[in-house]
């Protein structure tokens, strides 16, 4: 009977203050009180017994184990091919054709990996988790390799011999020719100062623009069909009237070459499979190899005919895009369940496929995604993005492009793969529309309960409205979804480029110092007045607003330059083949070819900003508890010797996330002004800039570059993540959080992020699962975009910190993706621990 939201109206309303079990138990060792025992497969798992690891059968178990245990390493093969090819051919061809030819050259030569047990074949590196470098974008130095070899987290190993080869063959050629150098040699000092102060980050300084997600076209057309289409467009170019016809011809030729490259790559796998079949004595294994050969002969050249071919088709396209140029937020099949359903249903009806076989193929592909670790980052980007994750996010459920329910049996199979394999990659999300059956929502909630941090949960109604508001057609918007974390786009038809994070709390910090970064003493903003002279809160807010506009414009100016450099020097002809309208416009994915072209700036720290402004408004200008000088002095001293002030602020200020209009109104104004500062500014591709509210792991880095803030946050502590409230400041429970959050009009953004952490014991029973489902539906009814959960108690996290070996498999939700707790640096770990732990709904 006790419903999720049966509010207790107590005549003596003390129920809200009930202590948690752990409080009662006192300060015993975290290990003793951890709700999740070490080495358990999950909160509610069967013990593994004699199995070698999770997985539906021994093949999948072996594949998963191999992938799980493989250590990320660097493969220099691609860089060597790339460098040799550029040395010989640069200048002989147009840039798009040169790019396509290098891709073809690499597909012809690269060392193939064909693992025992594999049903889905193809690997970017020579072995699982061997990651190529992209020297044309960022050329790693010898020192970079040594750092990557030895750093504690996100280590990538490279042999000394390879480092020597790299130093001799690769580094000298690229010196001064990389995208990174082109960018940093160009940017104005004002930008550089702000960037180095940590006011924003820049994704594109060492990774290509990503967020590449596919629609259903590759399941209906093969590369030969695309080539024909490309040829038709070449044939109809008007060299007389169209000033861009020659550029288009080069781009289209490049696309056709890329199609050949992916076919060559597949054929080489077919050859290898046949070769192995010849010497294979086990007839079952022989048949399996011949089947793989047949599949690789057919796709990607032709449209897939079977479930197996459809998955392999996707995998070849995935590999192609991440080999050509591994864009940020790599590659994503989009609504994978919807794409595979026609193949599944046809074959099940014909009796040529069983559910188990389909699931096995899916599991094989899951392992493949996990084998593909993100390329290593350097510099500030490495500091802000501490993860191996390359952000493939499989969208499950949701709506079809005709607006009907997209859930099918395949959706459930994907959920099973998510739960059973619980690997770092791929990430997964479920899309819950009012049309989504409760059965599916419950199945998803049961996976969430496992505590691996995924799937995250999205509201199609909200993001479809977001996309329509940005000018997409209804059908294209419906076929859209989430690419990596929470950002959404029109799958297969849009380049939605995330350009970097905006440290909005740092903008508050420089506002309080009249444009100076107090951490370094360097002037990084614009002059907005001495806050000690401000008479009203409005004056303070206006100063902050002035800084916001200044910093946003600074970032956009350089973003547009970077976009120009990518369009010019690093086109992606293979990716352009599979993204709608690139063929018909004859333009590259990075050059306005796609139907939609959006640039995003990800704003972080709404909670920290709101709470800081609320502190000053409430205590300085209204209640006059403290004057500006006292707070600013305390902030400058990191609240040293003024704990009473800090405690008063922390405990006696209206903070965001409690359904308190005082604070929430400030959040609304900040959000509104961020939208106005960013929204609609033109990019170079005929599209616009928009905002989304996402921090991934950047809130930790952004916190590090800051002193204390007026909300009582101490220096170097992480700022609030996504649109979540500041850590521990949401004291009125999850329903107040979602009410605060949904006062923001999510549809004006390109995505918001809300983290919630629950104790595992809260989700033990089936009726608890139903409650979680209702919380999700309520959030979405109110207009929420995304919500994700960590189902883990603080004691477990502490136990994992103390005994990392015992908790190797502990996945937690970071921000838009899950990561192994023990792969995170102590700052990130602390940040997960600090999130408010909900012990009731």
């Amino acid at each position, binding site marked *: 009977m*006790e419903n999720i939201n049966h509010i207790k*109206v107590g*005549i003596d*309303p003390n129920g809200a203050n009930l202590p948690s079990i752990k409080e009662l138990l006192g300060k015993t060792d975290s290990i003793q009180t951890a709700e999740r025992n070490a080495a358990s497969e999950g909160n509610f798992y069967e013990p593994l017994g004699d199995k070698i690891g999770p997985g539906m059968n021994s093949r999948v178990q072996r594949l998963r184990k191999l992938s799980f245990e493989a250590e990320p390493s660097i493969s220099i093969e691609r860089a060597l091919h790339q460098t040799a090819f550029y040395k010989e051919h640069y200048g002989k061809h147009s840039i798009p054709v040169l790019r396509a030819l290098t891709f073809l050259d690499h597909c012809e030569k690269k060392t193939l990996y064909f693992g025992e047990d594999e049903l889905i074949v193809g690997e970017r590196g020579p072995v699982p988790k061997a990651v190529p470098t992209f020297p044309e974008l960022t050329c790693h130095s010898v020192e970079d390799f040594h750092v990557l070899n030895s750093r504690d987290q996100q280590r990538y190993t490279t042999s000394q011999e390879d480092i020597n080869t790299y130093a001799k063959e690769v580094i000298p050629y690229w010196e001064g020719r990389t995208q990174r150098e082109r960018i940093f040699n160009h940017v104005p000092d004002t930008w550089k100062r702000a960037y180095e102060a940590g006011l924003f980050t820049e994704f594109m300084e060492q990774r290509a623009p990503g967020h590449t997600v596919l629609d259903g076209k590759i399941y209906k057309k093969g590369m030969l069909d695309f080539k024909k289409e490309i040829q038709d467009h070449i044939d109809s170019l008007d060299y007389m009237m169209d000033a861009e016809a020659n550029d288009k011809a080069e781009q289209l030729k490049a696309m056709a070459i890329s199609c050949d490259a992916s076919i060559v790559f597949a054929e080489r796998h077919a050859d290898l499979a046949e070769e192995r079949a010849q010497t294979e004595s086990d007839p079952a294994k022989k048949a399996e190899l011949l089947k793989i050969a047949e599949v690789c002969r057919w796709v990607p050249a032709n449209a897939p005919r079977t479930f197996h071919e459809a998955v392999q088709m996707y995998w070849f396209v995935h590999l192609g895009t991440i080999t050509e140029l591994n864009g940020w937020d790599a590659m994503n099949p989009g609504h994978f369940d919807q794409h595979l359903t026609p193949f599944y249903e046809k074959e099940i009806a014909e009796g040529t496929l069983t559910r188990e076989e389909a699931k096995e193929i899916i599991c094989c592909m899951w392992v493949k995604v996990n084998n593909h670790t993100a390329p290593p980052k350097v510099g500030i980007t490495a500091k802000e993005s501490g993860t191996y994750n390359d952000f493939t996010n499989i969208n499950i459920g949701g709506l079809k492009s005709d607006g009907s329910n997209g859930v099918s049996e395949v959706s459930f199979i994907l959920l099973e793969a998510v739960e059973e394999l619980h690997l770092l990659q791929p990430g997964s999300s479920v899309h819950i529309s009012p049309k989504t059956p409760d059965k599916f929502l419950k199945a998803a909630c049961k996976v969430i309960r496992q505590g691996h941090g995924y799937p995250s949960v999205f509201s199609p109604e909200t993001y479809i409205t977001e996309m329509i508001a940005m000018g997409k057609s209804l059908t294209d918007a419906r076929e859209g979804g989430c690419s990596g974390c929470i950002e959404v786009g029109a799958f297969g038809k849009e380049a939605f480029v995330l350009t970097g994070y905006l440290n909005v709390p740092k903008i508050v910090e420089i506002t309080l110092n009249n444009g100076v970064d107090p951490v370094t003493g360097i002037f990084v903003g614009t002059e907005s007045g001495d806050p000690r002279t401000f008479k009203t809160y409005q004056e303070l807010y206006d100063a902050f607003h002035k800084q916001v506009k200044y910093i946003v414009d600074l970032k956009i100016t350089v973003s547009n330059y970077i976009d120009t450099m990518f369009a010019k020097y690093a086109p992606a002809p293979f990716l352009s083949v599979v993204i709608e309208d690139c063929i018909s416009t004859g333009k590259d994915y990075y050059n306005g070819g796609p139907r939609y072209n959006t640039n995003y700036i990800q704003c972080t720290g709404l909670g920290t900003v709101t709470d800081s402004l609320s502190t000053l408004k409430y205590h300085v200008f209204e209640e006059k508890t403290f004057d500006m000088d006292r707070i600013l002095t305390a902030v400058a001293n990191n609240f040293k010797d003024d704990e009473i002030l800090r405690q008063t602020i922390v405990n006696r200020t209206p903070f965001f996330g409690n359904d308190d209009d005082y604070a929430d109104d400030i959040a609304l104004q900040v959000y509104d002004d961020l939208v106005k500062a960013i929204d609609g500014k033109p990019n170079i591709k005929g599209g616009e800039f928009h905002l989304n509210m996402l921090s991934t792991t950047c809130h930790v880095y952004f916190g590090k570059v800051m002193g204390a803030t007026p909300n009582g946050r101490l220096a170097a502590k992480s700022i609030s993540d996504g649109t979540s409230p500041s850590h521990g400041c949401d004291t009125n429970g999850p329903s107040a959080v979602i009410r605060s959050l949904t006062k923001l009009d999510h549809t004006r953004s390109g995505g918001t992020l809300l983290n919630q952490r629950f104790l595992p014991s809260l989700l033990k029973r089936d009726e608890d699962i139903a409650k979680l489902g209702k919380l999700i539906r*309520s959030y979405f009814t109110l207009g929420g975009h995304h919500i994700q959960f960590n189902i883990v108690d603080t004691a477990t996290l502490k136990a994992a910190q103390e005994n990392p070996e015992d908790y190797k498999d502990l996945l937690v939700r970071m921000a838009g993706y899950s990561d192994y707790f023990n792969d995170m640096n102590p700052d990130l770990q602390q940040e997960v621990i600090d999130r408010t732990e909900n012990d009731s709904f």
Partner: protein
Amino acid sequence: MYSNDKCISSGECVKNCPNDALTLTPDGIVTNADLCAMCGKCADVCPTKAMEMTGQLMTTDEVMTQIKKETILMDTSEGGVTFSGGEPLLHHKFLIEMLDACGKEGIHRCIDTTGLANSNILMEVAGKAEHFLYDLKLMDSAKHKEWTGVPNEKILENLKLLAASGMNMNIRIPLIKGVNDDDENIYESAKFIATLEGKKPLVNILPFHNIAAKKYEKLGVHYEKGIMDEPSIERQKRVLEIFEEHGVNAMIGG
């Protein structure tokens, strides 16, 4: 209420107390209950909220404003408002006002009660509620008096009345080792519930826990741990079996 672990010994409360009821000691704040007038001025100035006033005086309209904020959550979860306490029926005038106000908004109303109340009041309240959570602690009246301070005749009579009115009910039995978990009491409870008129209630067996200990501490009241304890899992299973034998739906928790 005072939480020692939150106290930073700022001394603000001591300074602000008009009656000098508070003393700052090395072990935290000590309140002289004879001098304390419950004015709450100490809580107003405490920087860490170590000192808190519990409860808040609110009008019906103020409570309704808070409740209405939850409308969409209540709608999607088919939830509503549970009036509990203490004992809500002790404050029936306000309770009835609140029930009428919720009724006007079409909000589902539930009463969580010990059942110790004037029968007329109980039935008036029942006329304005959709559901009851009704405590049933011990069937033997003398034992009931020993443990709760009151006999149980009125409680049982009210439960019969309420059941006969057709009310939807959960009957809640806090199960305490050595107090009411013996076969005899459970048999009697099951028999009694089985013979109730009206709709079949669901019985929630609530095994005893020590969650209140922290609150006792905050209130500065001594909490005697160990007098009461949680019955074993086997015992809980046995209790469920007895209810089943009598055709009564029962579950642990809820």
